[in-house]
């Protein structure tokens, strides 16, 4: 089962967790990204490319389901203005055992960071700054690349 969504509403992590766990497959790994509050950010604004975002999130979830044979894959990403401490993204992988769930969850957040068209604007009081992409994110996503299958 696949669930991807982009929403302007605050993410209800407890409810998302409970709903996702209800699939009852044995193991669930989750990742929650939140607005950091340690460097003076007063507001974070998330912009996205509707249509392309849905397509990108669906592709990431589909790849995770196929590669780890998941019972379910969930990606819910918030957009619009949000405050420090508020969740930005919820990712969950449900599988019969822990290792595929943990690996699939890490895969989804790593790939989302480089493949999905979201942009962060950090506000510190009157100052606004677009967050720059990090090379370490590209490296994290690249570690999931699989060698092509040998031709038969």
């Amino acid at each position, binding site marked *: 089962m696949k669930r991807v969504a982009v929403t302007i509403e605050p993410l209800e992590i407890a409810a998302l967790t409970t709903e996702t766990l209800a699939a009852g497959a044995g193991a669930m790994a989750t990742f929650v990204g939140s607005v950091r509050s340690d460097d003076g950010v007063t507001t974070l604004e998330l*912009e996205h490319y509707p249509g392309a975002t849905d397509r990108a999130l669906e592709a990431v979830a589909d790849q995770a389901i196929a590669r780890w044979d998941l019972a379910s894959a969930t990606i819910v990403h918030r957009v619009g203005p949000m405050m420090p401490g508020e969740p930005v993204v919820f990712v969950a992988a449900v599988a019969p055992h822990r290792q595929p769930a943990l690996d699939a969850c890490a895969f989804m957040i790593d790939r989302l960071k480089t493949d*999905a068209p*979201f942009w962060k604007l950090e506000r510190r009081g009157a100052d606004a700054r677009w967050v720059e992409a990090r090379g370490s994110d590209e490296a994290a996503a690249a570690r999931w690349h699989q060698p092509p299958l040998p031709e038969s």
Partner: protein
Amino acid sequence: MALDLLYFAWVREAIGCDGERVEPPAEARTVADLMDWLETRGGGYARAFADRARLRAAVDERFVLLDAGIAGAREVAIFPPVTGG
């Protein structure tokens, strides 16, 4: 042929709008050609397209390299490297 352009993040801010419909010249065959053409408008366009290494693009909602062709495309989006998650 009419082409819808979309701009995001600081590209949108530099140009001053989130999108527009344009009629690029026939010699604009790739995304990079399109940027060259838009850049000649000067002002915010020149600022937005000055450093191509900081730009990414999508043709009809699919991510492409800047040398990708735009023949038959309905929509081209231009934006900085993504920073979600």
